[in-house]
């Protein structure tokens, strides 16, 4: 009974919305909005196609993964270096704040000039946009470590890599993960944008192509595809975060209960 109620809560509203959508489009055919049934069949035809998967979807996802991973590694390493040194922190803060505030898509034209229009440019765009939230959050996370913890490590003679591995990284992890979450959504945006600008393949290119040729149901199926990727990414992130920060959420629960 309870399971039934829970599933009803989960699927109730989506079903209602789908029904409304079907009802609204079933009467007079609307040029801009396809019916759910048309969209579903088009989605199958367009995206479950071996060529499209191999030529457009997988390369796009590969570039996204490469860019995001590089940005996370770069951001955390640089962030640790800068965050643990007070002078370096003060020296770099205004410049980093500027780059964080810079809307990442404006870097697309710059990198198109400097790198050319190839795969490297697209990965560079993703890295150059995604690295800032991770970098600044790592600096912030390292900076706000409890000083007692720092002094404890020092008096126990824990230095260098072991200190980073066992004290600094874990304490900064919650803040770093918040940066990684931002980095993922920016990465997805930049993946699409870089392909809309100058590309002959990829998800963003395909969707714009559909729109320019007024293939409306196909265009909608592309929007759904991007949406599904977004949902999948956020799902992957949440399970990764739960794993990395298990101790942290446990701690919070204990604190909240007390």
């Amino acid at each position: 009974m309870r399971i039934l109620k829970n599933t009803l809560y989960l699927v109730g509203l989506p079903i209602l919305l789908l029904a409304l959508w079907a009802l609204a489009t079933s009467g007079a055919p609307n040029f801009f909005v396809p019916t759910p049934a048309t969209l579903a069949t088009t989605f199958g035809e367009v995206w479950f196609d071996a060529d499209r998967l191999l030529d457009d979807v997988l390369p796009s996802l590969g570039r996204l993964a490469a860019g995001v991973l590089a940005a996370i590694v770069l951001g955390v390493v640089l962030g640790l270096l800068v965050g643990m040194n007070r002078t370096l922190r003060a020296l770099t803060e205004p410049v980093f704040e500027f780059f964080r505030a810079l809307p990442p898509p404006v870097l697309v034209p710059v990198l198109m000039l400097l790198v050319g229009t190839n795969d490297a440019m697209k990965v560079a765009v993703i890295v150059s946009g995604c690295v800032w939230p991770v970098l600044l959050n790592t600096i912030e996370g390292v900076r706000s470590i409890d000083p007692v913890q720092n002094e404890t490590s020092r008096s126990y003679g824990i230095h260098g890599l072991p200190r980073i591995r066992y004290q600094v990284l874990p304490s900064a992890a919650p803040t770093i993960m918040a940066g990684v979450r931002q980095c993922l959504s920016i990465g997805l945006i930049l993946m699409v944008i870089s392909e809309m600008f100058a590309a002959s393949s990829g998800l963003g290119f395909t969707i714009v192509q559909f729109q320019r040729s007024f293939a409306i149901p196909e265009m909608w199926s592309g929007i759904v595809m991007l949406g599904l990727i977004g949902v999948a990414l956020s799902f992957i992130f949440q399970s990764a975060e739960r794993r990395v920060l298990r101790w942290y959420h446990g701690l919070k629960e204990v604190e909240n209960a007390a």
Partner: protein
Amino acid sequence: MTQTVAAKTPGRRAEPGPGKGAKRRSGSARKRLSDPLLGLLGVVAFLAVWELLPRLGLAPQKYLPPASEVLAALVRDFGLADFWKAVGETMAAWAIGLAVAVVLATVLGLVIGMSQFLRRATYSTVEFLRPIPSVALIPLAVLLFGVKMESTLMLVIYACFWQVLIQVLYGVADVDNVAMNTARSYGFSTAQRVRDVVFPTMLPYLMTGIRLAASVALILAITAELVIGSPGLGHEISLAQSGGAISGMYALILATGLLGVAINLATRKVEKRVLSWHPSVRGEVAA
């Protein structure tokens, strides 16, 4: 979950100075430059590297003009009416989009958050729609509105709406049960309960949401102008690029960055002022 972490410490980034331990250490150490001075030094060093890279031929001067040229172009832009018109168009899309998104999200968030039934019934839909990247809507916006400000607005509103809605939902969920029950037994009406119990609890979360949404709104406004070609700074950038006015393009990019910095500073200031009564901000001032 991380959003609650961020939300519970509003304005933490603005904390003055380093932790206590670091301060004590530096007091006994040799005299050092003050932080703002070091920051200035960092900016100067950055500009110097940028100036030298093309001058020494380490980067193609055609594609990366030296900093002095770009800064000169930026100063020239400041005197042009067209530049300010583009800034105005971008900021108008930013402000209208942000305002609409905040109002919509706050009202809907309050309605959904205060009802157990609605919260459970909308959960799956919200969690599904939220991660959809707003750039996915670019083709749709082009079809519906063409190269006009409405396309920009559509993307900005969509992106900001979820940022704020999620924070408001977290905020409403954070309301103290005892306070709520007290208000109920004192015979507060629903409107009074919203105003005096729910709203103050939610406000720090709402401000965090607005702060995040303000920078997202700028990103989306510029993106839409860049990709769709609706009027504004982004459109000017793509015009400058295709017209081969490379230092002009870099100057405009600098301008968007400066706008972003200004927006960040302004929202942090507003947040601090609006929440001046809140313990998290009060504690910071006392420390």
